[in-house]
């Protein structure tokens, strides 16, 4: 996936919505900008398969050496898949944040109404 094609939350999560088996499925990750800002990531805490997530609410957290940051969900729905191997190789978050660095796949009930397109998200990051 290309950064330009994704939607973002102000809090730096990206989402790509596709269709699978007749249902809307969202793939969720964190942006390259966020990974760069977080620095040395040492752990990521994610929900389990079957858990519910709610748009705009916390679904997990990223631990860097210096601090812990919350992850917020861009969608409301039920977790279908969790990127299981990620905690053992967090380098994919920086090497390939929009493809191999995905976090969750979620069956979508609804999308956040605060999603930004790439241009708007980039503008927000540039103003930092």
């Amino acid at each position, binding site marked *: 996936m290309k950064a330009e094609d994704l939607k973002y939350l102000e809090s730096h999560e990206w989402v790509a919505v596709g269709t699978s088996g007749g249902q809307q499925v969202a793939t969720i990750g964190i942006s390259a900008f966020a990974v760069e800002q977080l*620095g040395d990531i*040492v*752990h990521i805490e994610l929900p389990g398969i079957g858990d519910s997530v709610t748009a705009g609410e916390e679904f997990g957290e990223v631990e860097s*050496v*210096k601090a812990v940051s919350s992850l917020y969900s861009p969608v409301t729905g039920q977790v279908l898949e969790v990127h299981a191997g990620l905690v053992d190789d967090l380098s994919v978050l920086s090497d390939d944040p929009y493809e191999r660095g995905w976090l969750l796949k979620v069956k979508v009930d609804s999308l956040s109404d605060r999603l930004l397109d790439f241009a708007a998200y980039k503008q927000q990051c540039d103003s930092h």
Partner: protein
Amino acid sequence: MQQTALTQWHSTHGGKMVDFAGWSMPVQYDSIMAEHAAVRNQAGLFDVSHMGRLRFASKAAESLLERLATRKVAGTPIGKIRYSLMCNEQGGILDDVLIYRMQELDGGDKYWMVVNASNREKILQWLQRHDPRNEAGLEDRTHSTAMIAVQGPLAVPKIQELLKFDVAGMGYYSGQFVEFRGFPLLVSRTGYTGEDGVELIAPNEHAVALWELVLAEGANAGFRPAGLGARDTLRLEAAMPLYGHELSEEINPAHADLGFAINLKDREFVGRDAILAAQKVSGSRRRVGLELEGRRPARENCPVVVGGQEVGMVTSGTFAPTLQKPIAMAYLDPAYAEVGRSVEVDIRGKLHQATVVKLPFYSRS
């Protein structure tokens, strides 16, 4: 925000600047892990000018400090530096400090003291309260000097080459004024990283030149600037307490595992009675080290739990870059504080297995 003589240098050299105790300081340049590794294997440079530097012009300083420090000050040999606590009457820790007795370049024999940035104003007021006429000749040199820590196994040999004097021959926790390029430089064999190294105190106007000279001297030896982020992970691995975390006015020195910094015998100092009383009471929580399973670090204020009961509280925690596992310091009920004891740490609602371990987590070979 207050600026050190090096603040401008940091921000023009990639430092990510943050507000630390009212000072604009670099938390990191690129990676905390890389800066941490440089200090463990080569050397890192830290701007620690935010710390308070106090000079006492008069001989009366010795009796003032002797009355206020938990560590014996009277009779400190010239050239020695001592780590001490200062307490209030209730035994609450006001600060942890370094007390220096130095021969200055004009031959004068003076006490100096380095205090935490966050406590400088409080300690200045405390000193004034106990010496209202300033007979000790206290002068705050924080804003006219800079302090640079050069820490790591290659720090002492490289600084020796730069300064052309026998730094390696100085004992640990010793210091000396030298004349360097026409200005007085206080060189001490001290630090806050668990590595060998030096700290340098120089007049502000020479700080940037000195910093760049040290960096240039170590350029081929892997020296790099390091920020407060690495300073924190390094001191945590070395189990050095940080004021506001392991030490505070709510903590009595008797429980802080800092026995070496307390001299009770044949002395009178503020807080002594409270420390003696605390030593007689069993059951108070005391400082221990924890190693956690997995990779998720515990942070300050995470409860430590045994069988569903809270038995302690984490005061600092991180993922230890050298040890590659999460470590934490905590205050624990003595019943659960013995080395090897299994406990759980509640990290935002989820329990994680941990073991009480001997401190420090890391010590240089």
